[in-house]
């Protein structure tokens, strides 16, 4: 059902119009930079040429190039309904991401994309939806939250579960608080440990699933976060009765070409850049049980 329709879906790889080389990045200018957490920033980018504006689906990613440093895959965290602006949220963990996180407004980066298959939101219409994000897993999910808010009547109950190490590691904090006030969804935030100024839940995201409000057999779940978080979350969702082909995970692998040629991102039988990054748990479950794949 859901899995087949997702895999049949053909997304554009978003190559620039005309005969641009698929590896050629297009110049984008940093319009704004927001410090989300001590090591994470959100960059708002505008194309230097209007024709380079990108349309994308939630869950897709771009290859972002810091000139003179290198290129890396970054999920898109902005609103697909506002493609005039490209939004990326980056955690500074390596050479390229440190350089990206240090960029100031007016800096120019190269962008190619969007790539990959995003969240199969159409397959979730008419069903309850559970969105589970761990740590920096929220940015790749935010685009579909915008879509869900726009088409709210198309879905049943919507449950958002967001976990982080500590309250200081919660990204988009103020925006997430606005979701808390919505009456058409239920938001649960939880952290691994907190001080006395935190009045929310403490515990891993999996502990929030048994009591979450959804009709499991008629639920689609979109999960993004560290692989080990997705493994335990998918197990908890399946144990609750969500069908394994209606649980979708966004996988992360080292991307190089992002076009399905080089094989750097191979994960079992899939190239994550081409076949993913969003893949069904039904396919992933055997791989997630293996170590160091």
């Amino acid at each position, binding site marked *: 059902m859901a899995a087949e329709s997702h895999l049949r879906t053909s997304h554009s790889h978003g190559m620039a119009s005309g005969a641009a080389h698929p590896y050629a990045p297009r110049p984008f200018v940093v319009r704004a930079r927001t410090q989300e957490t001590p090591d994470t920033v959100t960059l708002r980018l505008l194309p230097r040429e209007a024709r380079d504006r990108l349309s994308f689906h939630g869950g897709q990613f771009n290859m972002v190039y810091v000139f003179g440093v290198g290129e890396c895959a970054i999920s898109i965290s902005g609103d697909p309904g506002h493609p005039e602006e490209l939004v990326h949220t980056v955690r500074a963990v390596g050479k390229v991401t440190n350089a990206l996180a240090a960029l100031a407004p007016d800096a120019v980066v190269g962008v190619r994309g969007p790539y990959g298959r995003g969240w199969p939101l159409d397959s979730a219409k008419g069903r309850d939806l559970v969105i589970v994000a*761990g*740590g*920096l897993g929220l940015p790749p999910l935010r685009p579909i939250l915008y879509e869900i808010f726009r088409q709210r009547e198309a879905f049943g109950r919507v449950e958002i579960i967001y*976990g*982080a*190490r500590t309250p200081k*590691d919660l990204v988009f904090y103020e925006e997430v608080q606005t979701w808390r006030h919505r009456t058409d969804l239920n938001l649960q935030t939880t*952290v*691994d*440990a*907190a*001080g*006395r100024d*935190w*009045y*929310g*839940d*403490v*515990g*891993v*995201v*999996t*502990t929030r699933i048994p*009591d979450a409000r959804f009709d499991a057999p008629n639920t689609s779940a979109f999960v993004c*976060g*560290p*692989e*080990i*978080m997705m493994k*335990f979350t998918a197990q908890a969702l399946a144990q609750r009765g969500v069908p394994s082909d209606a649980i979708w995970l966004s996988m992360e692998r080292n991307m190089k070409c992002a076009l399905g040629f080089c094989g750097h991102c191979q994960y079992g039988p899939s190239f994550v850049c081409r076949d993913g990054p969003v893949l069904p748990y039904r396919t992933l479950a055997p791989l997630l049980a293996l170590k160091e794949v």
Partner: protein
Amino acid sequence: MSASASEAIGDRVLSHPFFVGIDPTLVHAMASKAELRTYEVGEMLVREGKPAEEFFLVFEGKVALEVGASDRAGITVETIGRGEILGWSWLVSPHRWRFDARAIKPTSVIAINAASARYALAAHPAFGYQFLMKLLPVIAERLENTRVQLLDIHGG
């Protein structure tokens, strides 16, 4: 406490998810010294190191379990909410709390006297077995959650 008040609390205890399926007669015996209590935000339910003379059935609200040391502020490591049971130190020698528990939302609980509960469990082994078979999965689940927490799954 009057017999009718005690019976009303016993009925309330029986409505708690933890006690579903347990022999009602013995639950009433265990609940003979139980109390309905409410806590405002910030009030402590238990303090680390103090005698564990009761345990709690949470009906409303949220309670933070905190650990700390003299060189650092209290750190919340788990929260317990509606429908959950708080505390098993009353069952395990030396019967002292191993953490602080503080209400972080207005909280309503039933506090069950530990001595009465231990007596009921020891005097009625079948009931004791039933009770422990309900408590063991709670302990196992919390142990598993703690293991997952140790894996730093949100950090990646």
